[in-house]
């Protein structure tokens, strides 16, 4: 279970650290006024400062008035968390597998895995859907629109 408060805090910390990174990084480009006009780092520096300040405000609001958020204590229930993971983890594995397997194999494997392993579909149907997905991608992108999708290290190692 994840409380609304924890989620607010985590998001504020996330946006805040992005802001800090922007501020630090834009200092390299120089801020302020030079002979060429406004320095390249000025605008990002200002936006970074705004992000940091805004995140601090959201952070404090997330912590202090506990009573306000008391009515919505739970942002994500355990069941919802399981569903989220069920969607996101396979998707992340799919993306991680693309450099090795290529778009076609990875997406076919992904479709097969998410349909067949939790037994939403029978194995033959899942196989058929996986094959259809890869084929559709190939026809639409490689053939119709001439966009080459990554073929993967494995396939090129095999000499295709």
């Amino acid at each position, binding site marked *: 279970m994840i409380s*609304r408060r924890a*989620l607010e805090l985590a*998001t504020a910390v*996330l*946006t805040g650290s*992005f*802001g800090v*990174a*922007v501020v630090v*990084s*834009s200092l390299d*480009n120089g801020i302020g*006024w030079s002979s*060429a*006009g*406004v*320095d*390249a*780092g000025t*605008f*990002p520096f200002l*936006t*970074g400062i*705004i*992000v940091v300040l*805004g*995140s601090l405000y*959201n952070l404090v*609001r997330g912590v202090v008035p506990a*009573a*306000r958020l*008391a*009515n*919505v204590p739970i*942002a*994500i229930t355990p069941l*919802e968390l399981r*569903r*989220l993971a*069920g*969607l*996101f983890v396979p*998707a*992340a594995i*799919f*993306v991680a597998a*693309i450099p090795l397997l290529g*778009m076609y194999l990875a997406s076919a494997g*992904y*479709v097969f895995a998410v*349909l067949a392993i*939790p037994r*939403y*579909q029978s194995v033959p149907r899942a196989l058929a*859907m996986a094959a259809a997905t890869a084929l559709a991608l190939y026809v639409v*992108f490689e053939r119709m*629109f001439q*966009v080459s*999708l*990554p073929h993967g290290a494995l396939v090129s190692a095999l000499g295709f």
Partner: protein
Amino acid sequence: MENLQELLHGFTIAVTVPHLLMMVVGVLLGILVGVLPGLGAPNGVSLLLPLTFGMQPVSAIILLSSMYWGALFGGSVTSILFNIPGEPSSVATTFDGYPMARDGRPTTALATAFGSAAFGALIGVILITFLASWVAQVALAFGPPEYFAVYFLAFASFVGMGGAAPIKTVVALAIGFAIAAIGIDTVSGSVRLTMGVDELVKGVSFVVAVMGLFGIGELLVAVEEEFHARAVSSKIDWREVFRAVGRLPRHALALLRSAAIGCWMGITPGGPTAASFMSYGIARRFSRRGRYFGTGEVEGIISPETADHAAGTSALLPMLSLGIPGSATAAVMMGGLMIWGLNPGPMLFVDQKDFVWGLIASMYVGNIVAVALVLLTVPVFAALMRIPFVVIAPLIVIICVVGAYSVSNSYLDVVMMLGFGIVGYLFKKLFYPLAPLVLAIVIGDKAEDAFRQSMLLSKGSLGIFFANKLVTCLIVGGIALLLLPLALQLARLRRKPAPSTDETAVQETAREKVII
């Protein structure tokens, strides 16, 4: 009258066989993304974007804008038949649309929705026809300070009128600006904010951000709740369609009021979602049958639908004439304009007459095509909703992955897209608005350039933003909008010194639910 001549010329461009086909394809694809949860107009349009690079700009914009109309209509279909809003902007349509359909009048609900939506769109297009070229003419005289002031006003109106928590809006906007700054600085040529990643020199494409924020993010929100697509009958009774549309003029006041709200929210970037909720709220307050709202009232369908489409359409007015998109989808289309080599803004009306008037004429025709197609295809798309979510979800993930990759054949984009997905989920969950974030990514560079050019003109003095009446008005208006939420809060505190915390918490959550 000059406008009408130009419009007629536009019709000769828009009403050709290839362009009509383009509209049909666009509308059908639009209804598809509108119906499917997790795919919406912004990422539908950005998915299609890479495929339009080889087209004539006018054909490309007709395809993309038709997709937008289709998505607006498609979102209403699922709202009414399944109580599942396919688009955030059609959430308000579920309040009365679904009860009416459930009580055995699905055709009436659908026809009322489409009829009033078409009316809203029509008002929006008429507004564009007569106002856009005039606004562009005024804007031709704009220099960098005026431009920066207009950008400032647009962003401030998100904070003041967007409805989400003001500081969260500010954070979303500023993050968008920072993301827009990543890569090579157009003025000095130096590399910014790459954090040591060489590939980031090319910058972060808004398409990648939209795929993640709207595609993966929405999918993650959708997967939390299990879908029970318990459809009411999706058969269309054609006689009832005409009867329902024939009854619309009785609600002329609601139609006009909602169209006005929609146009206002579309031009000042408030977006279709905020427009539909505002229109619904106002209708409930002013209607004589206000207390029956929520049980299947006709005006409860008319108000959000008219405002939604009026806002969606008129969001293209500032995009065309000023180069400031009025909604997230308009922002994506404007990104497309820049990729096709056009410069969105007043010069379009001088240099690209065919493009502008072809688009405006296509909006008239496209909406008629959309109404006809959506009525004809309701049963087909309703059947689509019976496909289990577990099958659709991985397909949408794959579409987003391929879409992000095909922008510039970069694997890093895919990884970033997934990252944006997590951000999109968190932001949606905690009611950070996404539209300003996307808008800032698309026009952040232009706003920054305008600012830096103004500074060069004035040799570093901020006084240039108060140098003439127009600029001063725009800047002061922007500041007023920024301070509006603060002022409202102070006024509320003065009226009710110590409200019980429980009550405010309940109100707050209810308000937040309504906003997003």
